[in-house]
C-alpha cells in the first residue's frame, strides 16, 4: 500500500495510508479530457474563459485542463493560481497556513472564471475562493470543476464539472494525483 505525506484532502500532517485506488492514470486522463469538452460545450468556446486552480491540489489539474482546451480549440486561455488561506472561515480555530502564493496575472472582470480543485468536500474552500475571486475583479460568472466530489457538503455549493462522484465516509481521505485517485485513512505519524 502506498504511504505518502501531504497532498491529501483534507491536508494532514500525519501520513496518508491508501486503502483503494478508485481511478488510475487512464481514468484521470480521460476525465480531464471529458471535462475540457464539457467546459467548452457549456461556455460555447473558450474566448472569455479563465481557469483558476486552487493551491495546491487544483493547480496541476488546472494546467492539464488548459493544455487540453488549447489542444481542442487551438488557442491558449489564461490560467491563475489562488491560495484561499486568508479567506478561510476557520482562521484562529485551527492552524491555517497558506501553501503557495496566489498568482493571478490578469483581470478577472467580465470573464467566465472556472475554479479548479482536486476534491469537493464541505464546500468551505470554495466559499473562501468565491470571496477571494471578487477581490480580483467582478467575473461575468464563476463555475466549478473538481476531479472528485466526495459529498458531505456544509454549504449550498455544487460543482459544474466533475471527474467522478465518490461516496465517502467523513473520516476518510481522498488523494488526487495526476496518475491516480486513492481513498484511504489518516494515520498518526510517529515522527
Amino acid at each position, binding site marked *: 500500500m502506498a504511504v505518502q505525506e501531504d497532498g491529501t*484532502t*483534507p*491536508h*494532514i*500532517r*500525519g501520513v496518508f495510508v491508501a486503502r483503494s485506488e478508485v481511478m488510475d492514470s487512464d481514468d484521470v486522463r480521460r476525465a480531464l479530457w471529458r471535462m475540457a469538452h464539457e467546459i467548452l460545450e457549456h461556455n460555447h468556446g473558450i474566448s472569455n474563459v479563465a481557469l483558476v486552480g486552487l493551491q495546491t*491540489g487544483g493547480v496541476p489539474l488546472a494546467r492539464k485542463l488548459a493544455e487540453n482546451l488549447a489542444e481542442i480549440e487551438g488557442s491558449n486561455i489564461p490560467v491563475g493560481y489562488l*491560495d484561499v*488561506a*486568508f*479567506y478561510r472561515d*476557520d*482562521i*484562529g*480555530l*485551527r*492552524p*491555517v*497556513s*497558506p501553501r503557495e*502564493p*496566489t*498568482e493571478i496575472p490578469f*483581470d478577472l472582470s467580465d470573464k467566465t472564471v472556472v475554479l479548479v480543485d482536486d*476534491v*469537493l*468536500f*464541505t*464546500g*468551505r*474552500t*470554495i466559499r473562501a475562493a468565491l*470571496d*477571494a475571486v471578487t*477581490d*480580483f*475583479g467582478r467575473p461575468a460568472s464563476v463555475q466549478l470543476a473538481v476531479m472528485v466530489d*466526495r459529498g*458531505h*457538503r456544509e454549504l449550498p455549493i455544487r460543482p459544474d464539472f466533475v471527474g467522478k462522484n465518490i461516496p465517502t465516509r*467523513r*473520516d476518510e*481521505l481522498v488523494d488526487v494525483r495526476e496518475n491516480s485517485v486513492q481513498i484511504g485513512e*489518516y494515520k*498518526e505519524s510517529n515522527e
Partner: protein
Amino acid sequence: MTSTKHVRGVDDLGKDSILEILELSNHFLEVSNRRIPKVPALRGKTVASLFFEDSTRTRLSFEKAAKRLSADVMNFSVSSSSVKKGESLRDTIETISSMGAEAIVVRHKSVGVPWMITEWTDASVVNAGDGAHEHPTQSLADCYTITRQFGSVEGKRIVIVGDIKHSRVARSNVKAFSALGAKVALVAPPTLLPSSVDNWPVDVIEDLDVAIKEADVLYLLRMQLERQKESLVPSLREYTNFYGLTLDRSQKLQKSSIIMHPGPMNRGVEITGDIPAFPNALITNQVGNGVIVRMAVLYHLLGSGVGLAGLHSEGEEDG
C-alpha cells in the same frame, strides 16, 4: 509551523520562525500588489498600538499592516492619554487588555518593557522598539529586503556602520542576520561600540574603506545628532569623513552590493548626495517591506493558529 506567542526580540523567533515569516511575507507581498490589497484574515481581531515614544513610520507601518489584514486598530496616543495624568504602565496595559486586544504593539524608551508587560496581559506582544535594545520587526523587514535581492541572507557579508552602541536596529539585526547565517561586520568609532561587542557573533573592522570592498550589504545607521554633544564623536564632519557613505567611497562598493538604511536618514552625515536615489540603495524597499513583514508577523501570531497544534487532524479542512 513553529510556536510563537510574542515577538519581543529576535530570540523569540529564532531561525525557523524567521524563515517562516519571510516565506509568509511572499504571500502578503502578492496581496499588497492586488487591486484590492486587503484580505479578511484577521477580521474581528484587535491590534492595539501603544507608542510611548514618538514614531510615525513604525506606527503607520503597523497600522497599515493590521488594516490590510482587516484587523481593528486601537491607537493609544501617549501625549493625550492618562499617562500624562500619572497612570502607571501596568494600569494602561490592563485597561487596554480589558477592552479586548489580541495583540499589543509597544514602543517604549525603557529596555525590557515588552517582556514586562506580558505579565499583565494575555495578548501577544510585539516590540516596536525598546530603548537601545531591540526592534525585531525592522530586522525582519531588512532580512526580507536582503532575501528578495539575493535569494537568501545566508553567506552574505553584511557591514553595519555607525552608532552601534545606541542602536536597537543594530542589536536586532546582528542577531537576525547571524541566525540566518550571514557574516556580519561592524564598523564604528570605538566610542560608539558597545562594551559587550566581544561576545557578539561579528567581526569589528576599523576602516570602512577596507570593509566596504567585501560588503554584499552596506547597512548604514542613523547618526543621532546629539551624540556630538555627548562628545562621543569630535564632529559630524569628521564622522562623515571616516564613516559616512560619500560619493567617492560608494565607488568602492561591488557592483552587486546594496545599500540599506533603517531611516530616518541624516542626509549629509551618514549618507551624502544622491546616494539614497541610487538603484542599489534599497531604502524605500525597506519601508515597503516593513508593512509586508508586519502583516506576516501579525498573521503568524493571530491567524496561523500557532499554539493550536493538535487540532488539525479532525478533517475540517478543504473541500
